[in-house]
């Protein structure tokens, strides 16, 4: 089984936000929730870089460790998913997550959060693959259809890569060698304890 990972090549990302839009459209994500976002560092200065960030599907996921109701699980593909029927909306996964991935719909007064929502690596949730329930709660299950996450699939500059960690790591390494520079695979050290270059 492949170990699925994301890799954002910041030297290629042009901050077009197509990945963000594609994700929102593919999964019918409600207003106020962004499973993926683009953050620009040193905006307007020399060396400006943009990074597209979502759940990195960590090897030793902090969200899963701190969850008081144990609603997370890791699939055979190494994707970190959660069960919305179990989530109590405590918000702890957001505190623990190094990438700010968990999002919550505001459902009540004060800070009442609804069920947590995050990137599923386009692979749904615990419900039957491709079922209506799965789609409503987690969005499309592209992995079950043999497709990779849409954000990376439609990235115009192929800055965002998604797939077997070894394959995308090799692609990135080759790029860095060919062009002679690379500002690193953002988040890899934190998420996978690994540098891609």
């Amino acid at each position, binding site marked *: 089984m492949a170990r699925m990972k994301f890799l954002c090549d910041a030297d290629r990302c042009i901050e077009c936000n197509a990945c963000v839009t594609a994700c929102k459209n593919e999964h019918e994500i409600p207003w106020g929730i962004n499973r993926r976002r683009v953050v*620009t560092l*040193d905006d307007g200065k020399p060396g400006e870089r943009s990074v597209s960030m979502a759940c990195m599907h960590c090897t030793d996921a902090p969200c899963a460790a701190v969850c008081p*109701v144990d609603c997370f699980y890791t699939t055979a593909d190494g994707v970190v998913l959660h069960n919305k029927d179990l989530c109590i*909306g405590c918000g702890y996964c957001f505190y623990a997550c190094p990438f700010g991935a968990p999002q919550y719909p505001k459902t009540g007064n*004060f*800070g009442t959060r609804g069920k947590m929502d995050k990137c599923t690596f386009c692979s749904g949730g615990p419900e039957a693959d491709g079922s209506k329930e799965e789609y409503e709660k987690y969005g499309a299950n592209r992995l079950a259809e043999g497709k990779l996450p849409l954000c990376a699939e439609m990235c115009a500059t192929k800055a965002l890569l998604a797939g077997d960690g070894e394959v995308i790591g090799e692609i990135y390494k080759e790029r860095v060698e060919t062009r002679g520079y690379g500002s690193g695979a953002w988040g890899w*050290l934190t998420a996978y304890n690994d540098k891609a270059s």
Partner: protein
Amino acid sequence: MTRISAAVRTIVGALALVCAIALLTPAASTAQVNPNAAAVSEEQLLNQSDVIRGLGTIPDTKSYVLEHPAGREWRVFRTVWLKWIGGVSILGMLALLALFYFWRGTIHIDGGRSGRTIVRFTAFERFVHWLTAAAFVILGVTGLNITFGRALILPWLGHGAFSAWSEWGKYAHNYLSFAFTVGVILMFPMWVGQNFPTKADVEWLKTGGGMFSKGHGAPAPAWKFNAGQKMLYWFIVLGGAAMMVTGYVLIFPFYGGLTVGDMELAEIFHGGIGVLFVALILAHTYLGTLGMEGAFESMVDGTVDVNWAKEHHPLWADKEMAQQPLAGGPGLVTSTPAE
């Protein structure tokens, strides 16, 4: 012909010159501008601060934080440290109380019951106490569930039932926090006058309040509250204030520009003080019920036996008896000046 040979000479000469330059500067092909020269690297940014922040294009400004690996330190607090602090303080307190009970047993009224009582707590004082206490029990149980439930209750209830219980627990914890807040806010002015340290407290502390000697010596001096109770009072007021502040930060997440780091800090204090609170209240509950004869009724009908008052709060008892009409029948062990 001569023009052609001249042109060839020029071209060959130019090529030779280019080759010579290329040979003389072997790095010329890679000497192009490195577009990455000014670019930041992840490692460099993480060494500078514990958060990598940039600019985004969506209204949620929290999302402008690209990375925040410090969350992993909070994870260690939550999954390791808090469990140890809570486990050691709560189980340790239970063990100490059990040992104390087996060694000392229930502390009886030495002189027996006189059958006459004096008022110790007014209806309002009892109301405030039980409001705070009832809210505390629910807050304590539901709070401990968030930290220890997954390890202790989940395997026994199963995922579905445990989540349902935890979600209700979360709501109870959030909403009953207001009852607890009201209780502590009322308790502060209500008893603050009787909780400032006095000379008697030094005496009381020297003998441990007589708790650790089985002999029936002279009672340790105390006014309405002894030194131990005063410490408990100040812990409840100050610790309660800390629990309220951190708790409301957690109920109103990210309000007023709070960052993830602030939220984590609030949780660290809320959890850490919370487990100590539970441990202390266990001791308070023990001494108010099983541990001491004649104490619990002061929080039921508000009165205590006169002999109990003389043995545990002698200074207060003398003062009160001079002012209060005694209720009850004969049998009073007196030390009044008339004798």
